[in-house]
């Protein structure tokens, strides 16, 4: 599996600088502990379906990986509509983890996904630790899963989901329980709606997570002033998109400071420049969510833009950029 296939087939890993010398193509490959990705650009959970919906699947070829819509043990109906509202430079959603459930995921979704030639990270959700455990147990023998992303952060699940997000020991408890039933790499996806994300990150790292994804959406609310009701039938929702990018980036920095396991950055990334900010701060990979709604090829564009930046800066690999943030003292 090699995601950084040359855009031009004839160009076998070598291109020419302006002065005509052959310069090696920058290496986009990144490793995140046990996980190795062709490049650092993934799709974010819940924003690319199960990979079978986007009709232009070519948009995914060349991605660093796909994180699936969160799968739960039982099928879930999700929240009543409307579930989406646009906000300044962002959107609020209250999908509520509508999904087919793990059994149908295994038979109907995973095989097609696994055949795309792109690493598949399966996002797993639940209401109680036992649900996560059972879901992972059913999934973990299946071929084609690169890692699990344990979603302990969905703001749209009312029945206790918020506990996992916000109480470090609860989040760690889920990770610890899941850790016991699988050897596959585990990332914990954290909620930004906490006083200290670093504390939660440390807790899940100690519980055995191989990485943390930072972060899920921020809790937000919009009101229809005429009806005096929420714009979303579920009340509040999760804010995503460029509006939250500076906030997510600050959370990524907190996580990078707090733990030594790899951090995956997520929140408002739309362009390669945005992604580079996260990598510079120390994320070893990034996820693209809302930006794909505006442009289904956004993630692919980010990969290309990162490569172009590395060339322009004369860097030979993306690794040379990760964590180069020159923090003020």
């Amino acid at each position, binding site marked *: 599996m090699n995601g950084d296939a040359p855009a031009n087939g004839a160009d076998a890993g070598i291109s020419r600088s302006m002065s005509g010398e052959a310069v090696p193509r920058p290496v986009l490959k990144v490793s995140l502990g046990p996980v190795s990705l062709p490049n650092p650009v993934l799709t974010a959970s819940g*924003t690319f*379906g199960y990979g079978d919906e986007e009709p232009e699947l070519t948009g995914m070829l060349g991605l660093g990986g796909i994180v699936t819509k969160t799968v739960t043990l*039982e099928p879930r109906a*999700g929240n009543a509509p409307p*579930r*989406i509202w646009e906000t300044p430079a962002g959107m609020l959603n209250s*999908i509520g983890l509508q*999904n087919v459930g793990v059994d149908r995921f295994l038979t109907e979704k995973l095989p097609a996904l696994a055949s795309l030639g792109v690493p598949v990270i399966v996002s797993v959700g639940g209401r109680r630790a036992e649900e996560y455990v059972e879901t992972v147990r059913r999934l973990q023998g299946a071929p084609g899963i690169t890692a699990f992303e344990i979603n302990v952060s969905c703001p749209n699940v009312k029945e206790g989901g918020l506990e996992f997000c916000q109480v470090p020991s609860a989040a760690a408890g889920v990770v610890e329980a899941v850790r016991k039933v699988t050897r596959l790499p585990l990332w914990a996806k954290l909620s930004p709606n906490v006083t200290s994300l670093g504390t939660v990150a440390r807790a899940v790292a100690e519980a055995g997570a191989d990485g943390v994804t930072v972060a899920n959406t921020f809790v937000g609310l919009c009101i229809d002033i005429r009806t005096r009701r929420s714009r979303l039938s579920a009340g509040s929702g999760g804010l995503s998109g460029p509006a939250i990018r500076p906030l997510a980036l600050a959370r990524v920095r907190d996580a990078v400071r707090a733990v030594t396991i790899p951090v995956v950055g997520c929140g408002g990334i739309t362009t390669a420049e945005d992604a580079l900010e996260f990598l510079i701060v120390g994320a070893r990979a990034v996820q693209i969510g809302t930006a794909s*709604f*505006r442009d289904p090829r956004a993630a692919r564009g980010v990969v290309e833009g990162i490569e172009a930046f590395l060339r322009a800066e004369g860097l030979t690999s993306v690794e040379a950029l990760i964590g180069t943030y020159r923090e003020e003292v």
Partner: protein
Amino acid sequence: MTRVGGLAASVAPPRTVIARVESNRPLVPGIFEAVLALPSEWGPARPGQFVQLECPPPELFGLRRPFSIAGCRAVVGGVEVRIVYGAVGMRTHGLAQALPGVALRLTGPLGRPFDAMPERRAVLLGGGRGLAPVLMLAEHLGRNAHGAAILLHGARTASQLIPIPDPPCEVRPATDDGSAGFHGTLVDLLQSMSDAGELLEGRDALYACGPNRMLAALAAWSAERDLPCQVSLETHFGCGLGMCAGCAVPVKTTAGAEVSAFERFVFLCREGPVMDAQRIDWAGVHE
């Protein structure tokens, strides 16, 4: 009951392209028509399908908006797509200001089209800006000789009735205030046609687009009649591509049948926007 479906295979694959605004003008106050130039490999589109269109200004990050396709034809060097839209909020107001030449990202054609039933006469209902897709269907039926169509065309008031310069079939206008055509809603008009014996159960089929409220009334009215009814519904879309689960529409579950919770909602952008009116759980549809 007619299940709309089985069409996905026969529709053109969606493509993301750059659309150029050719023209953009008001049809009636607050309702505009934009003609968009697309590359020639795009389409063809079928009546009832939609596009996801970026609305200006492009610097302003935002979701694209869904618009029903009102027309689609091959022209020299490309394809011309028409949409008819109401300026109702920020994005559509922005679109209304787009000058010819503006480039906008567009994905389409998307979604399930109307599924015309050749054995039945088509009665088309277009409320307000909902006229566009049913007018395209009327033209399509004309071309394909699927059976004579009649188009019922509603608006609040006479000045809001979108003109139909070259009608492909009989058109009957109706206005809520009686200022033009029939005095009442399109459902009132249907009822009067039914009373007059102009509408026949078992022989006619209904195809409608308009405000969700009108479609709900239509669904209720046609529920107990042998009048299959396909409606093009609206809800808020995130992606329009089946990726976000934002466009949920509640559907009825067959009494007693064991269905998974997941089946409570369908994604309108994939299973719609045209759906069988009787399949929808109207109590859960917002305006």
